[in-house]
């Protein structure tokens, strides 16, 4: 982490700014085990009905489950529904 990044983080935390915007972090919202909403993603790496891998600024997010479905895909938001079993950063 460079110095510039460190200062940015400190300011963000001091002012309680939304991190996903300022630091470009992925924001994951999980509705129980049936819907996952991911903002700030980079791209879909793999898509099957049992495993989805999505690349983000903090590595690849792996979602495992049954009957997974991409409910919505837009340039900044992706929404996965189905029986989610595991969510993991790789």
């Amino acid at each position, binding site marked *: 982490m460079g110095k510039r990044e460190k200062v940015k983080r400190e300011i963000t935390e001091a002012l309680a700014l939304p991190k996903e915007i300022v630091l470009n972090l992925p924001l994951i919202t999980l509705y129980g085990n049936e819907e996952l909403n991911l903002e700030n993603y980079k791209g879909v*790496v793999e898509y099957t009905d049992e495993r989805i891998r999505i690349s983000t600024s903090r590595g690849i997010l792996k979602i495992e489950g049954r009957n997974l479905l*991409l409910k919505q895909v837009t340039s900044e938001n992706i929404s996965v529904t189905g029986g989610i079993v595991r969510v993991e950063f790789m």
Partner: protein
Amino acid sequence: MFLWLWQILKGYVRIDVTGFSVERFINMAAHKGIYLWDVTYTPSGVSMNVSVKGFKQLRECARKTKCKFRIRSKNGVPFIFYKYRKRKILLGGILFSVVFIYLLSSFVWLIDIKGNDRVKREQLLAFCANEGLRIGAFKYKINNKQLKTNLMNNFHDISWLDIHIKGTRAVIQLTETIPAPQVIDKTTPCNIVAAKDGLITSIVTGAGKPMVKRDDVVRAGDILVSGEFTTEGDNGSVTKRVHAYSEVWAKMYNEINFEVPLTYDEKTYTGNSKKMFSVQIFGHNYDLFHTDSGYANYIRGARHTQLNFGEDYPLPIIWTAYTYREFQPEARTRTVEEARELAEKMVNARIIREFDFAADIIDKSIALQETPDRLIVKALITTNERIDKEAPISEQPREITDSLET
């Protein structure tokens, strides 16, 4: 829900995408700002929904990612229009029905009156009809304000009133005034007269001069308490007139005569029934498939249903289902004993129905006379009732008072 409606209106395409990396295809489409939804996994690739506008941009994505896509289905309003674009009469029919429904919904087809108790519904409806608010009236022509004012002026029992037209239904909501208490006028002189014939059992006079006493027999109309009397004072006789008040009870006999026949018909339903329908459109009745029921004896029941578009849009079409149920009259006889019991019941029912609620029943004797085919019932009911009634003082009573005083 609204998103779905929007998609239907704008039209969308479901496509199957196959190729080496469908993920790249998805990423590229997303980056171009194409909205994809319901992306599902299929063994050969993926299938997804895309808007018509986005679909046109997909060709480039497919070429760059070396994927192939095929249209599985076209959905939404634009495609339906395209499919039926040459069918002019269908379009005309749709337009016609829209206009027709719009026109129909510009009339009042049902008038609802809420909150009336003392004000008669029929009177209100008749008045409204006179003022232009009737079934079938053009709803934009009704002058609500004027009608409201006229109703308020005409019906004094209404304290608050609102008329609104919701759809094809006019709702008249009103609140009635609290009924004015009955004022007992104690200033106008009056007599108390007998309302019925009877034998006086008690007389308690509050004001006036009693003309009868206990155990006197009176006829209806006789003066019981006079409101006019003469007193002897220092300055000679003075005639005074008062508002007589008295509570007078009298005993009277009431006869109830009727006959109980020993044979009667009983309805036995055969279980056969037929249904017939008729429809009323704009107040005209049209019978549908009506035939003779073929039953010699039947009971007809009717059920009316008014067609409507939701609660607020009743239509001028009333559907009626008639049910004809056949029965077989069967002659039965009852024994004298049964007839006796029935007679007793009928007497009691008639006492409840015909006699004043405040009357006391003192005695009830039933005399029965048997004839071969009927039972003749004579019931004598003795009651104790209040018989006092106010009556204006006429000029004649003076003589009676005089004659009684001497």
